[in-house]
């Protein structure tokens, strides 16, 4: 029976380990997108913000659709995504306090070096998609209701093509994040729409090249919203607002501009310029 003396504690040990949650004194939860996380922007920004304010920011990086859903359930203090119509709807429905522009970059169309649709170097995104559809070249879509997916759908609409009808044939909805979709595009030698930040920091480009850029419709605006404390009393309004304020103030804007990957600036700060 000696065994019982240490077997039971051994069984209970993990429970004791589970107790301390290891939380810092001041933390906020930010629901954001995979593009901001995967590009390394948060890893660069958050330590600067924390050094200045003592607030630890915890980022849950998912697609814009899921991020908004999380915030609507009150599971985040701040929403930081990139689909302005959805963000404005979020505020209008009372879930958010006020939306602020933070920064922008752009979307680009990438594809195989062989470029079977012949779109390399063109600057009309809708025309490029039409060419891809006509060539029946493989196209990897996010298919996950993310900001990028919504942008892609609006471009198909502008091209006058019902891509969803070809789903499972040349149009392939991965239903996953930007990186996973780029992995899929690389694997099948297909085209994809991606934000430039994820593309630049993506490390498995293999046979993919940047083919189409520079269309005004490819503009990608990021916005930030404090989740409404009137709706969710547990929202850390003061600390959340501090993050929103810092992002849109000169200090945060400069930090965003200073973030580079491989010598390239990934996001252009534009708080208070585009207005909303």
């Amino acid at each position, binding site marked *: 029976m*000696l*065994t*019982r003396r240490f*077997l039971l504690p*051994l*069984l*209970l*040990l*993990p*429970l004791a*380990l*589970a107790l301390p*949650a*290891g*939380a810092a004194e001041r933390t906020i*939860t930010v629901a954001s997108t*995979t593009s901001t*996380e*995967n590009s390394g922007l*948060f*890893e660069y920004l958050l330590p600067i913000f924390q050094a200045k304010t003592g607030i630890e920011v*915890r*980022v*849950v*990086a998912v697609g814009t659709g899921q991020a908004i859903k999380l915030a*609507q*359930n*009150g*599971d985040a203090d701040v929403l930081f995504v990139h689909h302005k119509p959805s963000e404005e709807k979020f505020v209008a429905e009372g879930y958010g306090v006020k939306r602020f522009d933070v920064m922008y970059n752009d979307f680009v169309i990438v594809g195989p070096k062989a470029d079977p649709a012949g779109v390399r170097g063109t600057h009309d995104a809708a025309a490029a998609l039409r060419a891809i559809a006509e060539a029946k070249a493989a196209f990897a879509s996010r298919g996950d209701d993310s900001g990028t997916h919504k942008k892609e759908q609006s471009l198909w609409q502008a091209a006058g093509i019902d891509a969803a009808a070809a789903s499972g044939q040349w149009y392939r909805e991965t239903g*996953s*994040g*930007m*990186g*996973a979709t*780029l*992995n899929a595009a690389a694997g099948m030698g297909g085209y994809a729409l991606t934000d430039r930040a994820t593309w630049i*920091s*993506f*490390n*498995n*480009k293999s046979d993919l090249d940047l083919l189409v850029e520079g269309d005004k419709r490819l503009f990608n605006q990021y916005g930030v919203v404090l989740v409404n404390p009137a709706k*969710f009393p*547990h929202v850390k309004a003061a600390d959340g607002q501090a993050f929103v304020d810092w992002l849109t103030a000169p200090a945060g804007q400069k930090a965003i501009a200073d973030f580079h990957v491989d010598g390239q600036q990934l996001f252009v700060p534009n708080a208070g310029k585009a207005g909303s």
Partner: protein
Amino acid sequence: MPRYPLTDLTAAFALALDMLLRVDRDLLEIVGLSLRVSLSAVGLAALIGLPLGAAVALFRFPGRLAVHALLTAFMGLPPVVVGLIVYLLLSRAGPLGVLGLLFTPAAMIIAQCLLITPIIAALSAQTVADLHEEYDEQLRSLAAGPGQTLVTLLWDGRFRLLTAILAGFGRAVAEVGAVMIVGGNINHATRVMTTAIALETSKGNLALALALGIILIALALGVNLAAMAIRDATRARYG
């Protein structure tokens, strides 16, 4: 984490070795959380699953067959579904939202515990049923009550039941779907080995992702070896 170009499988092995030798601080944190979460989940699941499995094996109660069938079927619960259910329960909009557990290690422990309790219960039910056949006469001659029988059989079967517990641990430490949803893969807070592997894969850092995978497998192997070593040592001394 540092960036590495994708070369091939050997690069992943070299990278795994390199990270282990350098004692990468981020890696230690992630490994530590993986162990903390999964061992806690296994501890909890064993506390629930072992008596539950034994009860199903030993006692004749109404609906026993249904419970047994459910436990066996739930051995294959999809982690994503479990994660989703726990998310809906723990979300601020959900019934347990006031606890504020979402996106914490506690939420991850709950999800993994739900995932593996049926595994431990179903496997231990089989073990205890076998033991019961062996010891039936002895127990009857002792005129042991039902509670005493259950405790005695669990205790006598402790070395065999280790397999059930290790199966649960293997499932817990390897799953990604549930902890991704309820933990949120938050850097320095809820990032574990499997969610880190998913993240590095999505960044296109395939060699790094694979290196992390190799370390995870080594980790699971280490835990199993340690458990078996403890078992053999105690068996030799007290068995």
